[in-house]
């Protein structure tokens, strides 16, 4: 039986999620990790590429990341079609929200803001195949996440991390075994969300206490 060939594309070389995923793939039977693609944080090639891409805005990004107290914010990047079409099965992505309802970014916090008191916030992760839209590709699997006592807004990402790795590996196994089932998304079933303003985040961090 031929092995399923997997390549991991990581945003930076020390990205914890990507490293955990790589380790899990290496330990998985029937899965061959053929590449771990990343960009070095500091290399002439990368700096030149970023200058070409962002121009003068690069100074602002570097300033914010390294010289201000404000944490750097994740930036959504639209992946080019050529890259998406390269793998035979597709490019898998674990989205930190429940699709199709919560597309975009800040989706660990938005469900808390929007939830009514009677219902738990719709938190979770969704594995989907990427397409050219924003988190709009066909869904493979999702995993709901419940809040526990002591959970805080700012450390939700850490709570999500193991679930993201598990979900991705589950998807990889399904692909290996040829049992992938895809559910198409309808754009009208959800909305695109954006980074929360600090004051909205403040409300979310207070409101989370109602659910834990």
């Amino acid at each position, binding site marked *: 039986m031929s092995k399923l060939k997997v390549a991991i594309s990581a945003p930076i070389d020390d990205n914890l999620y990507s490293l955990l995923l790589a380790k899990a793939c290496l330990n998985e039977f029937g899965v061959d990790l053929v590449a771990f693609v990343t960009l070095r944080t500091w290399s002439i090639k990368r700096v030149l590429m970023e200058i070409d891409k962002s121009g*003068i805005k690069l*100074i*602002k990004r570097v*300033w*914010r990341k390294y010289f201000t107290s*404000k944490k750097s914010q994740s930036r959504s990047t639209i992946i080019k079609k050529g890259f998406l079409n390269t793998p035979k099965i597709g490019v898998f992505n674990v989205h930190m929200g429940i699709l199709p309802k919560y597309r975009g970014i800040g989706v660990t916090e*938005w469900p808390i*803001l*929007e*939830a*009514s*008191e*009677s*219902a738990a916030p719709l938190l979770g992760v969704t594995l989907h195949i990427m397409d050219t839209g924003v988190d709009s590709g066909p869904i493979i699997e999702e995993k709901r996440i419940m809040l526990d006592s002591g959970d805080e807004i700012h450390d939700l990402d850490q709570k999500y991390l193991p679930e993201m790795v598990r979900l991705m590996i589950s998807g990889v196994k399904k692909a290996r075994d040829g049992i992938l089932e895809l559910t198409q998304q309808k754009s009208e079933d959800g*909305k*695109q*969300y*954006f*980074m*929360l*303003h*600090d*004051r*909205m985040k403040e*409300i979310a961090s*207070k*409101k989370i206490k*109602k659910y834990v």
Partner: protein
Amino acid sequence: MGMTSIIGYLTGLSKKNISIYDHYQQIERLQLEVRRFFTKNINGENPDIFGLTVYINKLTDNSFSRDDNLPEVGAIGSNVIRVFDNCVRNESSAWLDLLFMNTLEFYASEEFPFGKKQEFESYVASLMDGASWTETDDSLRKAQILSQACHYGLSNKIIDVDFGVQIVKKLLSTLHRGRLFNRGKIMCGTSFLLRSLVICNKFGDDAYISEFSNKLQETVLRRVEIKKETIFAYVNNSSVTFSHALEQIRWSQYLLEVCVFRNDLRFLNAALKSNDRLGSVLRSIKISTKMDIPNLYNTLLSLYYIYIINAQERIYNNMQEKIYSGIGFHV
């Protein structure tokens, strides 16, 4: 990019983010300066709020001439300060609602036919002929006035929604989306069109308007959040003009209106960011008591700024109450 722009850009990077306390401090300062300006320059015996509106309209319209008789402003009346005070304390928005109606010269006359719906409708109908966003300066000007008249008519219930829908459709037919979001070139007046669209969507039952309006709201949201068009993000941009800032405030108003209409917090979130960017620009505004054009511009801009921050805070506080009382925001 010149050395000055680079230095300006780098200086801008070190500026701290604006908080609501910064906004309030700024409002306090601007209120003080505006009051001083009004006290010094407006002291007539017979108050006439519309007179001042005419002046401000002329200014925003760029039709103001230095030869216009500025001292006449003195006859406008001292109660403007009282109305202004009421307004900044949120007791009445009437004054600012009037300001939002800039460039509608029709309003300038004291014989303005309040309650005479038909007269207003025929005036608006006459504007429809030849109004276009894409053709000559004259037709563009007509389109701008028409969109403002339409918004004023709808929001004050002078024209009915069906007529509003007709006007909106007419205006939309000549407005290409690429022109609505035109990087580097502002399309003053489009904010009124979008806000009219919200009213038509809210009170009308036209399927096309409803679908178009919803799609457009999502597009605008993405533009505000991701693309940051010149109109939305002009911090550190040396070409900031009075019109840019004023239209930016109106677009913020649009975001807040959509937030309330759709009960959708994403639009409030975007308005908060947009108004923070605006706050950075307002920092540099200083109003002296001298009656001249820059001071009048800055006074008007300050009034708009005070209005929009108050509106933002009303909605934010209301939303906070809803969230904490557990009502929730699922749409």
